[in-house]
């Protein structure tokens, strides 16, 4: 039996991600126990950890700090596979522009920026914010989580802020929406996606399956 902890810090809907990994676990015939939890001990003992997140960063960081989630994630990523999703990915960075500026966990070097009111595509047409829907993800380097996922597959995004890192070597995938952005960042045991694999049908479920089979370190 392998165990997976989805960190629940009280922000938004974690049922989607739990249901998706349970589904994938069944498809792969894995004996998998999924816990949606904020309990430090359960998270410390889990074989794999998912760090999700939706909503505004200030509220998320307030709960992350209150429940000491940063420490749990930092410990987990030393030894076990960790998947961070959407605001979970943004929370890993050092700082976010959202809500007038919020300090984040600083576990990955970089910051989170707003798309801007005047975002335009290559033809000059105004782009809507949030970036919502299915966009292509270009795989900028090989990674076990991309295994069997065709390059430029579309994934489901919904966000108004995007993560930026100076460490280009950590970027695992990029997307274009007015500007090029990091759609996936990978650093040793951690894989972080701006998109929602749990909502991205075939490509997303494949990525989640890869995560369940990954032993960490790219």
């Amino acid at each position, binding site marked *: 039996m392998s165990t997976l902890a989805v960190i629940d810090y009280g922000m938004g809907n974690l049922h989607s991600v739990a*249901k998706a990994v349970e*589904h994938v676990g069944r498809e792969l015939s894995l004996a998998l126990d999924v816990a949606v939890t904020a309990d430090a001990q359960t998270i410390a003992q889990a074989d794999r950890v998912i760090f999700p997140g939706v909503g505004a960063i200030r509220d998320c960081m307030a709960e992350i700090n209150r429940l000491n989630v940063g420490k749990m994630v930092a410990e987990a990523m030393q030894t076990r596979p960790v998947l961070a999703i959407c605001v979970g990915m943004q929370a890993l960075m050092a700082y976010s522009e959202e809500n007038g500026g919020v300090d984040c966990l600083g576990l990955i070097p970089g910051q989170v920026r707003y798309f801007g009111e005047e975002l335009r595509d290559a033809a000059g047409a105004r782009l809507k914010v949030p970036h919502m829907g299915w*966009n*292509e993800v270009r795989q900028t380097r090989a990674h076990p989580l991309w295994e069997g996922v065709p390059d430029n597959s579309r994934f489901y995004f919904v966000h108004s802020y995007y993560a930026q890192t100076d460490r280009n070597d950590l970027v695992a995938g990029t997307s274009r929406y007015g500007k090029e952005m990091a759609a996936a960042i990978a650093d040793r045991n951690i894989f972080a996606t701006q998109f929602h694999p749990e909502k991205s049908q075939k490509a997303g479920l494949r990525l989640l399956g890869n995560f369940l089979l990954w032993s960490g370190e790219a």
Partner: protein
Amino acid sequence: MGLARRIIPCLDCDNGRVVKGVRFVDIRDAGDPVEVSKRYCDEGADEVTFLDITASHEGRATTVETVGEIASQVFIPLTVGGGIRTLDDIRMMLNAGADKVAINTAAVFDPSFVRAAAQRFGSQCIVVAVDAKQVAGEPGPKWEIFTHGGRKPTGIDAVEWCQRMVDYGAGEILLTSMDRDGTREGFDNRLNRAVSSSVRTPVIASGGVGVLEHLAAGVLQGGVDAVLAASIFHFRQFTIRQAKEHMAGRGIEVRL
């Protein structure tokens, strides 16, 4: 290549069954919502919208159960609307597995509800559904918000209303033309254009799709980010795949 325009099949549900997409009249049974959702997902739907038209309290429990079943089998975004009036209603639907909720009449009665909902759950899961009807206007056409399935006028201008809802934190606008809903004559693309060009969030067009070209026209003429249709998909007149191929043929970027 970049972001794809979305095709969203809509399931109008009454007591746990999908009914014909034409609301309030001529209700025909179109199947089990879980099976129908799975079929749409397999055909390549980009999202699914579930509109609960059940009036009774008992029906509500059925809806929550159905939403939960859909969410455990369909791994694309799921929006639930119909009778969302309180923060508890939203929490219940999100806990059941919905990714977004659509707020309609409750927003008109109490606009601050949208603000409270967006603050509590995040704009990404708050869709404001707007039912608009054309009224006389100078110099061009104007549209007014109606509630109760298009029966009650409110005197509120549709474009201003949508801007206000976005300011209050709506992450997306689901815009239905009451003049076109159920007619199969196509979207009201002047309405779509007027709203889409005046808000910064995505707009979903709804109401009136009868043929595939209507979906393409919503994007090309209406300028919307997503198109929603019900009856053309329910009775297998067209598949989602056919709809996407048609749109791709008209030069629209879609997820194939």
